[in-house]
């Protein structure tokens, strides 16, 4: 192919990682919630969208982007806490499809409420001034904001890792994921752990939505497509595995990006082809435990 240079491949890689960063953030919340609660959260895309809209609302009411980065996860995480406490908790122990159907319905309700409140048309979302424009990254010019998305994702991941590996609450979460019954026998209040995990997952989804807003603007349906892709990421990485979600997220981003370079029309299909391939060779995904779904 003419004009195919190393610089171009380098740029394409960066574009793929930036794309993957948003997948990682969504998938990690999905994986966290599934790993602990065995809830397949179909409302995750709606929380992602909600993050963007809450950001939009805060910006319109005098907030700035940096404040939003803190407030949006708190607000939407709070909504997530309420959803777990009121809607999902009564369904524990009733089989995996109950919360699945509930969150599926919930996602429709949230999207419709946003349409009613903000309208169907969608809004643009300005890139914060200091992050506008492109910078030379050695292989060519790359948008500064996309570099910021990669960095912000790295910070969130590092924070999450510290929290899970270095705090006693993180220890309980890890133990709860492995065997909730024993943890309960040991006198730990598992329902509180699950509440917090669900809140954290939705907060990270909202953060991802806010990060995505300056890239593509804000519409009520923005969570739909990306949720499907995030599910692919969790399946490829292994349901319930955080490390798997991170690696698979970046891999999916890079696969999309590289496919776009050679056959743009195949880019979306490539995601699902990758999933099919991984499932054929390793049905539980990269780091998943076999039999978690059964």
């Amino acid at each position, binding site marked *: 192919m003419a004009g195919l240079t190393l610089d171009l491949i380098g740029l*394409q890689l960066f574009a793929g990682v930036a794309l993957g960063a948003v997948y990682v953030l969504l998938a990690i919340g999905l994986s966290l919630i599934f790993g602990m609660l065995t809830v397949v959260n179909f409302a995750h895309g709606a929380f992602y969208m909600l993050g963007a809209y809450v950001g939009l609302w805060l910006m319109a009411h005098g907030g700035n982007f940096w404040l939003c980065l803190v407030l949006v996860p708190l607000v939407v995480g709070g909504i997530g806490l309420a959803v777990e406490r009121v809607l999902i908790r009564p369904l524990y122990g009733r089989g995996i499809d109950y919360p699945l159907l509930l969150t599926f319905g919930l996602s429709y309700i949230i999207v419709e409420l946003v349409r009613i409140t903000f309208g169907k048309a969608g809004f*643009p979302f300005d*890139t914060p001034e200091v992050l506008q424009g492109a910078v030379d990254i050695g292989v060519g010019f790359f948008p500064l904001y996309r570099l910021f998305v990669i960095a912000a994702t790295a910070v969130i991941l590092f924070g999450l890792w510290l929290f899970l590996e270095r705090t006693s609450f993180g220890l309980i979460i890890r133990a709860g994921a492995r065997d909730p019954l024993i943890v309960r026998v040991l006198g730990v209040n598992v329902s509180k752990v699950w509440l917090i995990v669900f809140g954290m997952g939705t907060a990270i989804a909202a953060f991802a939505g806010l990060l995505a807003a300056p*890239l593509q603007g804000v519409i009520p349906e923005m969570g739909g497509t990306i949720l499907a892709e995030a599910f692919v990421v969790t399946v490829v990485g292994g349901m319930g595995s955080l490390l798997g979600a991170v690696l698979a997220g970046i891999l999916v981003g890079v696969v*999309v990006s590289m496919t776009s370079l050679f056959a743009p029309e195949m880019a979306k299909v490539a995601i699902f082809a990758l999933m099919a391939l991984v499932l054929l060779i390793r049905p539980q995904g990269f780091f998943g435990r076999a039999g978690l779904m059964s």
Partner: protein
Amino acid sequence: MTSKTPRSTTLNRRSLIAGGAAIAAAPFSFHTARAQEPTIKIGFPVPLTGPYGAEAQDQVRAAEVAIAEFNAGGGLGGRKAELLVRDDKLNPGEAATRALELIENDKANFIVGSLSAAVQLAINNVTKQRGVIFNSISQSDAINEVADFSKYTFHEALTPHLTAGAVGRYAFSKFGKKVAFLTADYAYGHEMVRGFQEAGKGMGVEVLGDIRHPIGATDFSTLLPRLQSMKPDILVINNFGRDQQIALKQATDFGLKKTTKIVVPIMLFTGRQSAGLAAFDGVVGGTSYYWGIEDQLPSAKSFNDQFRKMHGGRVPSDYGAMGYAGVRTVLQAVKNAGTVDTDKVITALEGLKYDYYKGPQYFRKCDHQSVQSVMIIECKTKDMRNEADVFQVVANEAPNEANLRSCEALGHKA
């Protein structure tokens, strides 16, 4: 599903009923017409949800102006018109179903609408079979071709051939001959590319590449580096609605404007208003209408004023204005024909010479294409009079059949 009755019979029955109704109503029209006669129903399927939603909503606003105007003017001897808006969700199947419902259940007399080169063909298919007039208000080349055309088909909007031709002739002579395309992968994009290529023939234009993206795309970051590496003089972005806003914003973010002139076949007023100056700055595009021409054109002024009055001071967009013209042409033809009878309205439409908002227009006989002007616009960066004063018209290609594809090329005999 459909009845086995031959089409001609259905038509005869339809016209018989319509004619009979007209005769029956005539003697009483002085005192009871208003109460007894059904309203003239115009079905208006447009993609209210989806990436073209903002434009579709403005089409509805403008169509309402045409309806209000008709009714304020006494309608058809007291018989009022009514707009039946339906959401086709930018989906051909959905649009065909809505069109069928409008005709069968709601008894719509006419269909005006659609906002997609692909979806309008689906609607046209239905109206063609049912023998109902359809006036399309979005771009398409195929709808004028003999395979899709029928005597019931009218096309108020521009065609990609005409639009891309006008923009291409302007841009290639000014900004360079090396061209790359970023194209929405459906009829609109394909037809635009063809239009630009045909305009470029004989101008020494070299096409470096054409990268396709799916409709409703939200990320172009994986396509832009490749386009950048082609080092084109001109990057033509052939997409619409939100896709256009996002593509322009991301191309700006990638710094493409530093080395390349970005050109779009249609530069959307709604998009510029929504996405802001930064994304659209420096971009050159075509349009069917910009409200700012009201200083020179009385018909534009009067349309804008009516729109402002009905819609809280806002001005109509390019595609909105086509919604107005699309409905007004049909209603004017009804008035001229003095009936809603399909064949008589067709004849009246064919004979229409009108200037409703953008200068003189008329429907070409062979393909019912509205012959009209194309404007070339750029973003204003200074001296804006108000928030809506975003473009300046840098060139205006007068209505000219020679710029359309010839009737022979479309497969018509005449």
